[in-house]
């Protein structure tokens, strides 16, 4: 049953594991005074390395048995479990009701949950927005963008700088941040239009780094590696009746920091509570996400959305039908970037402090992972994936340095188990009136 060949193969793999693991884990560098020397790790580590290589040996030898056992695990078909009315209009109705319930739940939930989890949920929502934005570029238009974090950085820094230098409020800066990020998307779009696939990925990767390094080195403008602090939180617009009618911003701190603003608790005459701020930020994020989802849902069904997908499917056919691929690719880049800009401005407002550290390549990778994990082009899948990608590392905090390892394992398993993502995109069906 088990051939000699397999045993030899297993032995080689096990030895390779030992060779790789011992220098990395089996010895420790200890500094004694000023002279460092090597020391063997404790027995526990050495035993676990041996156990690991044994495990590798057995997995290699019994690989076929394992994979057949693995394929026997039922793959849940999430889509078919959702009850689906047969007629298109009925499905639209069901979808509408489900969306309403989901939004209602998202709005009511923070008042029952703990402050920490509401804060985490806000972070999840930022990633949902980023994922949805990148999905336009990667999932719909099929352009692999590895530097998406650059637009996120542009959004965050536009708000931080505009409020720092000109004292503009969050609500003024939010659209400006979106527009600026869109402008950067447009700028990046121009030189990369001719590129496809891997080449595009490398150029966008470079662009992401350029933006980060530029921010890092423009110390006089951006504060360089020190970042920008004391970024004001968003305010809640309200109407003041005394002394005269005016529009004021409500702040969520104990005292108003900006002149003319009123603290939230004073306006409503209630006691100060720190959780108001967290809940407000969360609700604001929900609002932004709902806006994003609505806009992108419309875009997909609009001519421009159709053109994006057509371009992904067959560029040559598009050209032969009179579609201007330059304009279409640019629009995808610009739109995708603008959502990252909104997310960036919100991120800066929530953190109160930003530095180039927050916009490294790993962020781009996480956002891309959300899109791939969620199922290219699928909105609901992306929301699920964003939750998984943000909440799991928080839960797995105890594992510390093994978090990234778990992350990798999870990705590998996903690719085997559901390569098309959690919820692959469904084509919007167009209803035709037969007569």
């Amino acid at each position, binding site marked *: 049953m088990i051939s000699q060949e397999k045993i030899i193969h297993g032995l080689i793999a096990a030895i390779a594991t030992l060779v790789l693991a011992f220098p990395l884990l089996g010895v420790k560098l200890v500094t004694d005074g000023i002279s460092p020397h090597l020391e063997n790790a404790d027995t526990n580590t050495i035993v676990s390395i041996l156990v690991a290589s044994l495990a590798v040996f057995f997995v290699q030898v019994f690989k076929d048995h394992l994979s057949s056992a693995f394929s026997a695990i039922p793959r849940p078909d999430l889509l078919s479990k959702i009850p689906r009315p047969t007629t298109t209009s009925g499905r639209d109705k069901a979808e509408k009701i489900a969306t309403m319930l989901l939004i209602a739940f998202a709005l009511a939930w923070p008042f029952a949950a703990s402050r920490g989890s509401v804060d985490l949920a806000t972070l999840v929502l930022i990633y949902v927005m980023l994922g949805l934005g990148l999905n336009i570029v990667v999932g719909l238009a099929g352009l692999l963008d590895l530097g998406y974090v650059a637009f996120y950085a542009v959004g965050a820094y536009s708000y931080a700088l505009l409020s720092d230098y000109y004292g503009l409020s969050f609500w003024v800066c939010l659209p400006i941040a979106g527009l600026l990020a869109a402008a950067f998307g447009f700028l990046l779009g121009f030189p990369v239009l001719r590129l496809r696939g891997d080449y595009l990925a490398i150029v966008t990767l470079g662009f992401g780094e350029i933006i980060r390094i530029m921010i890092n080195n423009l110390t006089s403008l951006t504060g360089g590696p020190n970042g920008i602090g004391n970024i004001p939180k968003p305010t809640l617009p309200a109407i003041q009746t005394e002394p005269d009618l005016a529009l004021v911003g409500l702040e969520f701190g104990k005292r108003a920091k900006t002149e003319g603003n009123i603290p939230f608790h004073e306006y409503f005459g209630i006691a100060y509570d720190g959780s108001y701020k967290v809940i407000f930020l969360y609700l604001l994020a929900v609002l932004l996400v709902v806006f994003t989802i609505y806009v992108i849902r419309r*875009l997909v069904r609009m*001519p*421009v959305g159709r053109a994006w997908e057509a371009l992904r499917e067959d560029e040559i056919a598009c*050209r032969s039908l*009179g*579609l201007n691929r330059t304009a279409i690719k640019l629009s995808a880049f610009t739109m995708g970037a603008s959502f990252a800009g909104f997310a960036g401005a919100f991120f800066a407002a929530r953190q109160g402090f930003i530095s180039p550290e927050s916009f490294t390549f790993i962020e781009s990778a996480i956002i891309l992972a959300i899109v791939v994990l969620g199922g290219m082009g699928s909105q609901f899948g992306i929301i699920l994936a964003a939750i998984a990608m943000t909440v799991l590392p928080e839960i797995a905090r105890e594992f510390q340095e093994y978090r990234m390892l778990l992350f990798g394992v999870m990705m590998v398993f996903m690719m085997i188990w559901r390569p098309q993502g959690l919820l692959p995109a469904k*084509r919007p*069906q167009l209803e035709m*009136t037969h007569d």
Partner: protein
Amino acid sequence: MTDLILDVKNLSMQFGGLMAVDGVSLGIGDKQIVSVIGPNGAGKTTVFNCISGFYTPTGGEVRFQGQEIQGLPDFKISRLGMVRTFQHVRLFSNMTVIENLLVAQHRHVNTNLLSGLFKTPDYKRKEKEAMDYAAYWLRKVNLLDLANRESGNLSYGQQRRLEIARCMVTKPQLLMLDEPAAGLNPNETNELDNLIVSLKEDYNVSILLIEHDMGLVMGISDIIYVINQGRPLASGTPDEIKANPQVIKAYLGES
């Protein structure tokens, strides 16, 4: 022949040291079906690519409705009213049949972002028109029942028909078909034959055809151009071509 819809003069295309097309001239009048035939590798598709703007010809002149178009980008040429198909089916295979036809009408719908986001009356009207026009052409090519299917799941013959419908919804004056009958069974070829004639008769479209199926070519063409090794070999009506000894030689080899 003054009012030619497409007038190609001395077209040549050189790839490095290779002269792929050398001094080819074509003329297509209003409501004409013109075929280009020739042995494999004769440069027929290169001629197509030069005319439709996928290549920039290295010499010669291409006039479409009197306007010089050589060197224009492909999508602009297509917008002038000259669309083509390809030797291999190039559908948007993950998109539904009706979506394929809507994408082709991109220029005729309201592509303004804001009107789309807010569903303005003009946007809705244009979308409806595009949908109706797509449905009209689907009925014409007998694919209406498959409108919501993914186009990649259609049979080969259906995909070929959808491709022609997709060209027709762009409202062209000249349709260029590159081997439309390749891979079709005799029955389907016959349907295609009828469809092409109907496009010409009922929709006033001129057709430029590359085809190897001689039955189809001889049956429907008004004029046939024969190309051999990048050079024009002969031109004339089907009967003239059939009787031309040079053509017979090029096709059948020397006897």
